[in-house]
């Protein structure tokens, strides 16, 4: 009943649940961190820049509004320069530079400043419309904010502002703001690593939570397959895996019950056969003891009654043999067959078996010299083995029947090999696997053989109880060949039988 299922050795599970969970958790963590970071970064950057930008523009506007009225119009180059320097002087940092433009005049707060940050697009935007314009420019590693505003006159107020033609440009290095943003990016990056680590840890924990019951289930399934039907899982929790474990337990219990029922039925069937044989013993004991009386008395009866009496006598003998064999088989089934080991000369034993059944002339026995092949066997069982094999060969095969007894060394152990070979038609291939089965009839039309139908089954059991092997085959030269190998224990291998 045991299925020889062994766990196959699988390659490392790259597609295993654990790896998949870790990858999924990691991806989620990284994506979340990246998205959060990106959004935060964008919002924060916009906020920071917007704020500083607004402050810069507001301050510039205020200064220009304050200083512009003092500017002569149209300004000379030196006046324009003074204006630019004055505007620049109001700024907190000397790194903030001012460019003032009027028509073709273009002066900077710092003499000789090329004012490269100013793009033509911004210059054009400021010139064409009377509004403040700004642009963030990035030149190499440095980011700057360039603000441009036309100087306008507010009066006459009803006509709205009109440009004076003077434009002021301010460039503000965004180093501070850039470092805030960089710090933000670094912070996001730094936060991502622990988040990822945490995600992996959580994934492993989750995988453990899932995998532990799965692994337990796998072990339990294998255990069941190996025949330990009482295997059960401990069910904790109420999730799907707990449900699965519960279902597994129910299935295992159902399996155990039906297997136990099967075993029980088989045991009952065997016990029934044994009980029947047992019950038949007493009537058979009375019947079989008087068969000799019947046989002798039959001669004095009329032929019809004599035939009936002889029939009863012979069938009683057969029935007795059948019951004997059934009880022998029942003992093997119950594990109650006991070996009474005795060290004997095997050749002598085989010779005696043949002689006691008057087979010495019918069988070509090739036996070793006396006392060459000695070993501890159960003499009665060896007699049964040899007698059944030879009897079978004589009954179902054809003469000559050959018996060969030899010793065979395999490693440390010596085996006695008994081969019985007949010259009959051999055993059909379809029958060969079943010859040692109980009551197996090769010819279904023939309902009764001379033997009980248990002879070869008993032979095989007797061989097995010795720890030996038995094989049936067809000889290459024709005829059936039975080979028995019995391990040969010598005295001292095991405790000796009998009193010291």
């Amino acid at each position, binding site marked *: 009943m045991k299925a020889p299922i062994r766990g196959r050795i699988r390659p490392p599970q790259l597609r295993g649940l654990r790896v998949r969970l870790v990858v999924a958790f990691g991806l989620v963590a990284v994506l979340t961190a990246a998205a959060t970071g990106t959004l935060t970064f964008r919002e924060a950057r916009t906020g920071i820049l917007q704020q500083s930008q607004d402050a810069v523009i507001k301050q510039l506007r205020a200064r220009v509004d304050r200083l512009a009225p003092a500017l002569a119009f149209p300004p000379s180059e030196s006046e324009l320069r003074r204006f630019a320097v004055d505007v620049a002087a109001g700024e907190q940092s000397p790194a903030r530079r001012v460019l003032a433009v009027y028509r073709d005049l273009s002066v900077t707060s710092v003499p000789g400043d090329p004012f490269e940050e100013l793009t033509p697009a911004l210059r054009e935007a400021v010139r064409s419309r009377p509004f403040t314009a700004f642009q963030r420019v990035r030149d190499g590693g440095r980011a700057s904010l360039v603000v441009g505003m036309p100087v306008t006159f507010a009066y006459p107020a009803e006509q709205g502002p009109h440009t004076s033609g003077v434009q002021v440009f301010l460039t503000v290095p965004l180093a501070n703001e850039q470092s805030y943003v960089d710090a933000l990016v670094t912070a996001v990056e730094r936060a991502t690593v622990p988040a990822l680590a945490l995600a992996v840890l959580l994934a492993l924990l989750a995988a453990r939570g899932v995998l532990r019951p799965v692994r337990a289930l796998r072990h339990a399934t294998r255990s069941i397959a190996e025949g330990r039907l009482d295997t059960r899982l401990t069910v904790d929790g109420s999730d799907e895996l707990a449900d699965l474990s519960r279902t597994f337990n129910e299935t295992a219990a159902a399996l155990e019950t039906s297997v136990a029922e099967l075993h029980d039925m088989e045991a009952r069937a065997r016990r029934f056969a044994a009980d029947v044989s047992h019950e038949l013993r007493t009537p058979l*004991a*009375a019947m*079989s*003891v008087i068969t000799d*009386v019947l046989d002798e008395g039959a001669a004095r009866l009329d032929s019809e009654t004599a035939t009936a009496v002889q029939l009863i006598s012979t069938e009683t003998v057969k029935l007795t043999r059948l019951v004997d064999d059934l009880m022998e088989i029942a003992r093997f089934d119950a594990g109650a067959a006991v070996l009474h080991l*005795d*060290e004997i000369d095997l050749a002598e034993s085989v010779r005696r*078996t043949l002689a*006691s059944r008057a087979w010495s002339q019918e069988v070509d026995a090739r036996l070793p010299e006396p006392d060459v092949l000695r070993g501890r066997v159960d003499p009665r069982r060896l007699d049964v083995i040899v007698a059944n094999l030879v009897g079978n060969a004589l009954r179902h095969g054809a003469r000559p029947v050959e018996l060969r007894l030899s010793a065979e060394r395999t490693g440390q152990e010596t085996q006695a090999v008994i081969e019985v070979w007949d010259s009959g038609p051999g055993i059909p291939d379809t029958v060969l696997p079943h010859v040692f089965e109980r009551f197996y009839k090769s010819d279904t039309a023939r309902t009764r053989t001379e033997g009980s139908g248990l002879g070869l089954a008993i032979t095989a059991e007797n061989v097995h109880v010795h720890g030996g092997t038995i094989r049936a085959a067809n000889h290459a030269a024709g005829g059936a060949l039975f080979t028995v190998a019995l391990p040969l224990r010598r005295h001292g291998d095991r405790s*000796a039988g009998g009193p010291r």
Partner: protein
Amino acid sequence: MPRVLLIEDDRAVREAVALALGHQGHEVAAAGTGEDGMTRLRSFRPDVVVLDLMLPGMTGLQVCREIRGVDQAMPIIMATARGDEVDIVVGLEAGADDYVVKPVQARVLEARIRAVLRRATTAQVADGIPRIETHGDLSVDRAGMSVTRQGVPIALAPSELRLLLTLSASPGQVFSRQQLLETVWEHSYHGDARLVDACVKRLRSKMGEPAGRPRYVQTVRGFGYRFGPR
């Protein structure tokens, strides 16, 4: 003709065995219980007892011990049902000389009875062998079928006596269990060697052999037994 006391509880088996043995010419007395058997033993004075081991009330084993208590030389054959093998050794150690397994054919039982009676009666004195042999402090009278140790008679059952006579006829020679089964019990070579072992045990105990180091009936491990005072 030999007188057989049959103690068997099953009526049909008892009648059949009595019929078969009567047919062979034996004079048979049959008892259905052990108690009845013991009564018949005294009144009928049988030559041999055939005793079923499974009896209601007083068991076969008790009957066997009780018979041995009053008559060591009475040949006892016990009958056991096939499948009750455990009883055999106990029965043999209780003093039975031989056993048959039921169902048994009349001629097999008859042969056993004859063999056990031969054991009890045959005097094996060949020419040239002295009537009384002495081995250490043991005296064996082959013609008188008696054994004494330091002048004290030892009461032996037929198979014990026959076993001792067989072994002591060739001191030092090793007999295999199979040989002893054939010569003492007239069983086949493949018979039950436990008969020999149980009988050796009983014999040693009656001869007062020291446990573990028997003086007369020695075990030759892996081969069998031999007789030799040492």
